[in-house]
C-alpha cells in the first residue's frame, strides 16, 4: 500500500520561495500567474496494512514529523496496489 503526501504552507503564511518563483515566471512572460505556493511531496510505501490502520499511521506521521502544523497543512492519498494481471 502506497501513500502520497502533500505538505504545504498554510494559507496566509508568507511563502518567499513561491513569491520568487512567481516573479521568475513573470519574467518568462507568464505574467497572468497570480500566486505560487511551494510545498513538499512524499511517497511512502506502507507495506501490508489495512485502510483504517494506514490512515491513522499517516496522520500520526504527518503530525509528529512530516509537517510542522504551526505553519503547514498536510493531505494524503492512499493507493492500494492492484497487481496487474500479466497476459
Amino acid at each position, binding site marked *: 500500500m502506497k501513500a502520497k503526501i502533500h505538505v504545504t504552507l498554510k494559507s496566509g*503564511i*508568507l511563502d*518567499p520561495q513561491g513569491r520568487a518563483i512567481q516573479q521568475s515566471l513573470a519574467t518568462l512572460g507568464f505574467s497572468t500567474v497570480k500566486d505560487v505556493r511551494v510545498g*513538499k511531496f512524499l511517497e511512502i510505501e506502507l507495506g501490508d496494512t489495512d485502510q483504517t490502520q494506514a490512515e491513522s499511521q499517516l496522520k500520526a506521521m504527518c503530525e509528529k*514529523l512530516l509537517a*510542522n502544523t504551526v*505553519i503547514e497543512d498536510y493531505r494524503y492519498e492512499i493507493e492500494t496496489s492492484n497487481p496487474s494481471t500479466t497476459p
Partner: protein
Amino acid sequence: MNFGVLVFPGSNCDHDCAHAVSEGLGQDVRLIWHHDTSLEGMDAVIVPGGFSYGDYLRTGAIAQFSPIMEPLKLFAAKGGLVLGICNGFQILLEVGLLPGVMMRNRDLSFICEDIYVKVENATTPFTNACQSGQILKLPIAHAEGNYYTDPVTLSSLQANAQIVFRYCTVNGQTAPEANPNGTLDNIAGIRNAAGNILGLMPHPERCAETVLGNQDGLLLFRSMVDAFTGVHTS
C-alpha cells in the same frame, strides 16, 4: 560547573561552544553524542549550531527524535539550563521546548554577517551579566531565521518578557531596517515561560574571546555560570 554540548550528525559549532566555555570561562565541558541517553552530572546543556541531519525535511525536524532528546526534555523539565544556538534553536522549536517555528529568510538568502541585538531582558540566567537594553554585536549565519508564531503566542511572549534579544541598529533601534530576515517583531532570541531555556539565532560562541575581535558573546556563557554559582541572584 559542568556543561554538556550535544553533537548531532551535521553539528558544526559544537567545538566552538565547548571552547568558549572551557577556554573562556574555565568550566568543565563534555561533548555528548546524540545517541547517548544520559545527561547525568550536567548543570547546563548547549544545543549547538550547524546543519543537523543536513536540514532534511525541515531544520531540526529529524534531530528532535534523536535518543538524547528525551533526557534533554527531562533535564529541561527539572529546570536545567538549556541554550540553543542557531540550528540548536531550530531544534528546540521543533521539539516543542520553545514555541514557534523558523521559516526561510524573507529574502531566501543565507545571511552571514555581524548584526546588533538589544538585550530586552537582562534578568534571565543567560543575560544576567548584561545590562538591560545593552547592545551586543553578534554574528548570524543562517537561511532559516525568520521566526514565526501565532498572534496569541506572540502576545504572550511579549507580555511575559520572553523575547530576550531583538535585532536592532547600531544605536539600539529595533527598527524594521535592522531586521535581517523578516523575523516577527525583530525577534533574535526567546526564552521559555519558566526561564531556563533560551534559543537564539546569533552565534555567541563565535565572538567570545579577544583573538576573534569581539567578546560580546562571552556575556551569555558568563551569565549561565553566574546564574549557576549564584553571583547574580536577582
